[in-house]
């Protein structure tokens, strides 16, 4: 019997090592796997590369992870936050690296990793500072830049419902980066608000098929933390 549920946070995060590249789902406070991030802080590992849209935000455990010196580099589109200066302070002091990527290119590069597209052209960012050092060419009269698939060793995901095959749904705007990161992670770990029986999810409404998921932890988390 396939059963991807794990009983505790230790087994959910088992094997994650220093130096790992870790994707973290969520947009703003919604859809962010806070229990998994807190667990990551407790692991005491270092030298991490974090791929997340809102690496600079105040909510959740990410600032704690950065303050602990665990993060070597952040890959994101928007590292600033109105109510947190953790990232900005570390960045100004040269204590953390930043790979800044236009948000749509970030999403498409993550999607490409999951979809077996090693590289693609896009007009987004072409001719700007963020295309420096990247191959460019004109396609159909438009300047485009070549962008590579963005993989992660680990993807940390928050779901609304999960079954034992790892089929997932997301709630409201909590979908955001979660489905594409689930497919781009070599090891995909999910915290889910609700655990449902196999067969309870309508096949047409599954948002992430279970084959993208390795481990599921049931965390009735409640409301997103702001």
């Amino acid at each position, binding site marked *: 019997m396939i059963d991807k549920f794990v009983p505790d946070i230790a087994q959910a995060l088992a094997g994650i090592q220093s130096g790992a590249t870790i994707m973290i789902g969520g947009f703003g406070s919604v859809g962010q796997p806070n229990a998994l991030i807190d667990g990551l802080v407790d692991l005491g590992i270092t030298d991490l590369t974090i791929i997340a849209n809102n690496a600079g935000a105040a909510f959740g455990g990410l600032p704690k992870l950065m303050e602990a010196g665990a993060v070597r580099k952040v890959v994101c*589109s928007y590292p600033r936050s109105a109510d947190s200066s953790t990232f900005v302070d570390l*960045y100004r002091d040269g204590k953390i690296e930043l790979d*800044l990527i236009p*948000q*749509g290119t970030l999403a498409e590069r993550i999607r490409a990793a999951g979809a077996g597209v090693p590289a693609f052209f896009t*007009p*987004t960012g072409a001719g700007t500072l963020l295309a420096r050092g990247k191959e460019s060419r004109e396609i159909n009269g438009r300047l485009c830049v070549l962008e590579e698939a963005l993989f992660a060793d680990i993807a940390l995901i928050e779901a609304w419902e999960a079954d034992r095959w790892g089929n997932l749904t997301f709630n409201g705007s909590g979908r955001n980066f979660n489905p*594409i990161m689930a497919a781009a992670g070599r090891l995909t770990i999910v915290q889910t608000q609700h655990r449902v029986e196999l067969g309870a999810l309508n096949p047409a409404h599954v948002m992430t098929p279970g084959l993208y998921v390795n481990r599921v932890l049931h965390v009735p988390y409640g409301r997103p933390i702001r």
Partner: protein
Amino acid sequence: MSITMKKPAGRSRDAMAARVADDIPEGWVVNLGIGIPTLVANHVPTTREVIFHSENGVLGVGPAPAEGTEDPWLINAGKAYITLRDGASIVHQADSFALIRGGHLDLCVLGGYQVAENGDLANWATGENDAAPAVGGAMDLGAGAKRVWVLMEHVTKDGKPRIVSRCSYPLTALGSVTRIYTNLAVIDVEPDGFFLRETAPGVDFETVQSLTDAVLHRR
């Protein structure tokens, strides 16, 4: 050109947003950038069906929820609580940007630092290294929407023109802006340069031209 004269007020931020809203017809799919553009939604009557898109995957964003009725799982790209209209739909981040990048947005309204005669937009970095840079979805919107309108104050806080022959700030997107709404004027950006559509009430052409660092054509 003189930039030392007293800055005329022209339209308020809300009036600027309302002016943009007047030009958005029913049926358009529209993304509003953070800052002043966000205000535009307040000025489109709900009887006029405009489909507002938020980068985090929401199509059909409705008015802000009344206090106490917020759904904590429904936010927009500015992290504010939202409601969904009848007809709304939710997609993931890659599908949300596929919609932007694939040319399916009728319009995005962005804030701006500078817009150049050739339609270049600078709105994400000032080139000063005093803070971590942030770009969000600006480059995708700038390159992908069918129409890019910029909504901004006509000049900077210290009176420097934002409408220029060539951008001096780092670019967001190349040649994509087609219209500019400021507190002083509405200006089209065409292959032949800037064309004044209208001035704000109480503002004359000469004032707008004097605060613009490029030639303003009249029809």
